[in-house]
């Protein structure tokens, strides 16, 4: 049920977003909008006027006021159409594997454009300069900025900036100048295009587009360095392109360019870029600081994020510094802190909405591109357009070759030839280029030619390169990285290695990013986090991962319990889904590992599906995992507590749960986190809790009759094991009993109950829960039973299917 609400909330937000877009268009481009609406008016006014004509004095029974809603309505319909197209592609998943989505969108756009052309309908004035720069571009950029994988990004920061800034400059200037040279050839008949305009065009077509490429990279799990360089390049390259675009746009309108202007332009370039970055940092920190106080008003948390990002963008725009830089830096800065402050629902909402609006505006632009390709009258110039296409490819390749040669000596892991080829080949042009070209002011003479040229380049790169890139990269066998490093050992050793490297660097006085990272983390933990994070809990990623795995285990245990219960007649309709899941599990006992993942991740699967290229890239240090973990844990605990209040038997469920092998080792810190969440009345009645509550309550009901008082024997035997284990402290024994008593073996080797008690004493938050329940033998009856079934808590993964029949 909560999920339904959730989706509804998102739909609502989407609607708001669209409406605001519509109004924005209305306000922003009033002159143009009225122009198109007046062209539409004659078609509609007969109907609208029909009633007023017949009886102007009487109240009209039925009126149609199309002009009033025209723009928002048309935009909504466009978005809807684009979304349908997107849904359509994913019906046949195989299409999107081989053909990038952007190709499909453009194709649909072409078809729609063809239809519109045949009925002589003009495309709506959706894409105007203001519309694009004030509403669509910030969304696209916020999307990529927010989902930028932080850690690898900072590890490759220099390279990313190098390619983004110098690469884009290289491309724009190179293409611009060579096109200017082409213009001098009389045969092409384009002598009227001057240098400034050529540079403007070049800057438009040097914005590369990440989405299609990154999806491919993600699918074939290409190595991290290449991935992040492409990602970062595309992001910052937008910023550089827009700065250049504005600059050249300004220059192109000047008729005489003096030397002073050139230097001013260069200085301005840096002022604009760095100023944007500063603004972004400022807003990011303020946003993070604000979320510190939103604990009581969870519902506006996502809003805060959007408002601050957008504010950063608008204010940067106001003072004419790079607004893209501002919004990207803002998103990068606040993400880390905000996601720890906000509740999980807000966190998910933020991610969802950012992703959604970003992809909608991008979809819209691609779609529109298709339509515009057909409906506008083009100015075709073979020479100019083909040469611009050639130069685009040439300068990109050349640029990558030269720039990697320069950057390679500075990189720990240099790019080899394959990587270079990949980088060069990934230079698809996309939505931003088209939008920039389309929104050129009319005062630019060869605007139509530029639009045509841009469309040709985009279509060429998106279709030819976009489709061939996957097979090519596969063929070339570019180095790959496995990104699902989800074992504790790997995490521990990664930390160990990093600390070692940092230590060695300290010893030999070398400063590299590990050194800076070390210093930053220290500063971060000491000052920034204390200011920005509500309940500051410095946490190593090892601990986070450990908790996550632990929780997965717990989930499994609960899942398997659900499986048992669904077999009993007590549960009927509520858990149809779970039942199905457990049935399928029985069908496929061999595919344990997959199932394990499926079950443990089914909470946030939706996000994984939609956020194709960001979510899989969850690095262990990523806050995502930690956040999910903590929130899930909280809701889990809530569900337990709720269960304990619901019925007298509920205690048994929670007790049983607490005394389960894995959980009895819970570190005290973990409970305190959960406790914080529990204090908030709103706290997540997420699908997790709702999913678990029923099974638990019913499980306690069903187990009571099944398990009579016969437990004392079992307990004493397990105590014996514990004592034995205490003697064997040195050796490592993978019997699960020992590990379940690690934390409390000294004090509580007397009884099983003691061990749970002990833990709950450490846990301040749930003390009363324990006290409510008398030491009832029922309470832990289930536990020894479980113990005898499964030997290793962490080995259960490979063990639980055979164990299942015993349970039933």
């Amino acid at each position: 049920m909560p999920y339904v609400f959730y989706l509804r909330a998102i739909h609502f937000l989407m609607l708001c977003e669209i409406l605001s877009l519509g109004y924005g268009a209305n306000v922003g481009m009033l002159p143009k909008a009225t122009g198109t609406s007046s062209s539409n008016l004659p078609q509609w006014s007969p109907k609208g006027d029909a009633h007023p004509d017949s009886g102007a004095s009487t109240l009209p029974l039925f009126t149609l006021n199309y002009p009033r809603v025209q723009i928002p309505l048309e935009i909504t319909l466009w978005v809807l159409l684009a979304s349908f197209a997107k849904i359509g592609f994913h019906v046949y998943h195989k299409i999107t594997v081989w053909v990038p989505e952007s190709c499909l969108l453009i194709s649909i756009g072409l078809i729609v454009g063809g239809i519109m052309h045949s009925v002589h309908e003009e495309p709506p004035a959706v894409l105007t300069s203001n519309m694009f720069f004030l509403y669509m571009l910030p969304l696209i950029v916020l999307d990529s900025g927010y989902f930028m994988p932080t850690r690898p990004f900072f590890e490759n920061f220099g390279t990313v900036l190098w390619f983004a800034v110098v690469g884009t400059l290289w491309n724009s200037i190179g293409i611009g100048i060579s096109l200017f040279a082409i213009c001098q050839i009389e045969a092409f008949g384009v002598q009227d295009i001057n240098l400034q305009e050529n540079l403007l065009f070049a800057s438009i077509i040097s914005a590369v587009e990440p989405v299609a490429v990154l999806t491919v990279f993600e699918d074939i799990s290409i190595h991290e360095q290449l991935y992040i360089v492409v990602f970062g390049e595309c992001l910052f390259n937008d910023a550089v392109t827009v700065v250049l675009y504005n600059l050249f746009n300004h220059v192109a309108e000047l008729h005489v360019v003096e030397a002073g202007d050139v230097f001013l332009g260069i200085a301005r370039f840096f002022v604009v870029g760095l100023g944007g970055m500063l603004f972004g940092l400022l807003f990011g920190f303020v946003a993070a600081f604000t979320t510190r106080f939103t604990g009581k008003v969870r519902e506006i948390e996502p809003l805060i994020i959007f408002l601050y990002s957008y504010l950063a963008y608008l204010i940067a725009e106001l003072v004419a510094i790079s607004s893209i830089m501002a919004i990207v830096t803002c998103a990068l800065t606040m993400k880390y802190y905000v996601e720890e402050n906000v509740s999980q629902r807000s966190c998910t909402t933020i991610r969802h909405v950012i992703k959604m609006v970003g992809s909608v505006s991008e979809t819209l632009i691609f779609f529109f591109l298709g339509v515009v390709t057909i409906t506008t009258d083009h100015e075709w110039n073979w020479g100019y357009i083909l040469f611009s296409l050639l130069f685009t490819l040439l300068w990109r390749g050349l640029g990558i070759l030269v720039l990697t040669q320069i950057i390679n000596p500075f990189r720990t892991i240099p790019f080899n030839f394959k990587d270079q080829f990949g980088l060069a080949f990934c230079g698809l042009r996309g939505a931003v280029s088209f939008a920039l070209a389309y929104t050129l002011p009319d005062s630019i003479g060869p605007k139509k030619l530029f639009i045509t040229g841009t469309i040709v380049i985009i279509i060429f790169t998106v279709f030819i390169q976009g489709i061939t890139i996957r097979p090519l990269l596969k063929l070339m066998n570019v180095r790959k990285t496995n990104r699902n490093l989800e074992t504790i050992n790997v995490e521990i050793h990664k930390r160990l290695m990093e600390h070692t490297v940092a230590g060695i660097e300290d010893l030999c006085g070398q400063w590299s990013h590990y050194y800076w990272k070390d210093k930053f983390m220290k500063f971060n933990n000491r000052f920034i986090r204390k200011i920005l994070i509500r309940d500051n809990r410095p946490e190593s990623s090892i601990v986070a991962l450990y908790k996550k795995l632990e929780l997965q285990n717990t989930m499994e245990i609960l899942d398997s319990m659900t499986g048992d219960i669904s077999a009993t007649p007590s549960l009927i309709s509520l858990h149809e889904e779970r039942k199905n899941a457990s049935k399928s599990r029985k069908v496929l006992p061999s595919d344990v590992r997959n199932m394990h993942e499926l079950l443990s991740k089914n909470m946030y699967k939706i996000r994984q599906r939609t956020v194709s290229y960001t979510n899989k890239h969850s690095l262990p240090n990523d806050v995502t995992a930690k956040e999910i973990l903590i929130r899930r844990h909280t809701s889990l605990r809530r569900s337990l507590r709720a269960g304990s209040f619901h019925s007298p038997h509920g205690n048994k469920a929670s007790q049983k749960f607490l005394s389960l092998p894995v959980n009895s080792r819970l570190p005290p810190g973990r409970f305190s986190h959960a406790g914080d969440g529990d204090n908030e009345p709103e706290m997540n009645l997420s699908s997790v809790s709702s999913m678990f509550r029923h099974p638990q309550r019913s499980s306690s009901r069903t187990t009571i009759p099944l398990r009579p008082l016969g437990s004392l024997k079992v307990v004493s035997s397990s105590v014996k094991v514990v004592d034995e284990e205490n003697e064997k402290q040195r050796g490592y024994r993978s019997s699960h009993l020992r590990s379940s008593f690690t934390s409390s073996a000294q004090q509580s080797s007397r009884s099983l109950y003691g061990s749970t008690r002990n833990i709950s004493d450490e846990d301040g938050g749930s003390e009363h829960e324990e006290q409510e329940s008398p030491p009832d033998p029922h309470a832990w009856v289930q536990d020894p039973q479980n113990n005898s079934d499964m030997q290793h808590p962490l080995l259960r993964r490979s063990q639980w299917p055979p164990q299942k029949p015993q349970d039933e």
Partner: protein
Amino acid sequence: MRYARPNNAEELKATIRATWALITPEQCHRLIDSMPRRIAAVIQAKGAPTKRDDFNKVQDLKDNPIRSQIVEAFFDRRNFQKDGVGSMEEIGFEEFLTVMSYFRAPALHTTEEQREEIRRAKLRFLFNMHDTDNDGTITLEEYRHVVEELLSRSGSLGKETAKGIADAAMLEVASISVGHMAPDEFYEGITFEDFLKILKELEIETRMNIRFLNMDTTVLCK
């Protein structure tokens, strides 16, 4: 020298020696005067063989949670010869370089075997940091110790957490390397082969690197 990417420790040492010979005494003095941080331990020993205390005095290392392991690694004989045993009391420049050579980056063009070799060397270094008693296995105690040290800076986390994590990690290793175990079976500890196996996913050859050769000595000497 910046562009040289030596393939093995010997080559690296040779390159470093060659470069070392190129540095004039004058440059050296300026280097030492201007950058006391550089090779801080060696400087603090004032040319004499370096002892543990010298490492412990290095200021920047103070905050490192696994300082003792790092320092110990410099004195561990296993890192110098194939079958060295025990630890040394003091080391010279050569040993220092040898330890450093574990952190070199792989060359631009490496074959698969070379890559594997580098992997092994780097992992062996880490393994030795764990395996303090040099019995070829990382026992639970040793593992716990390292994890505790690692987490010692994270503040509120108690020893229990570290223990729990080490236990879980150990179980994980057991499940990966041994597979199903009978309840009375006993997992001795992680052998190097298991260690290789569990860290297969971690591309250590691309991560455990320090770029030593990037600094332009002429710039630094100014």
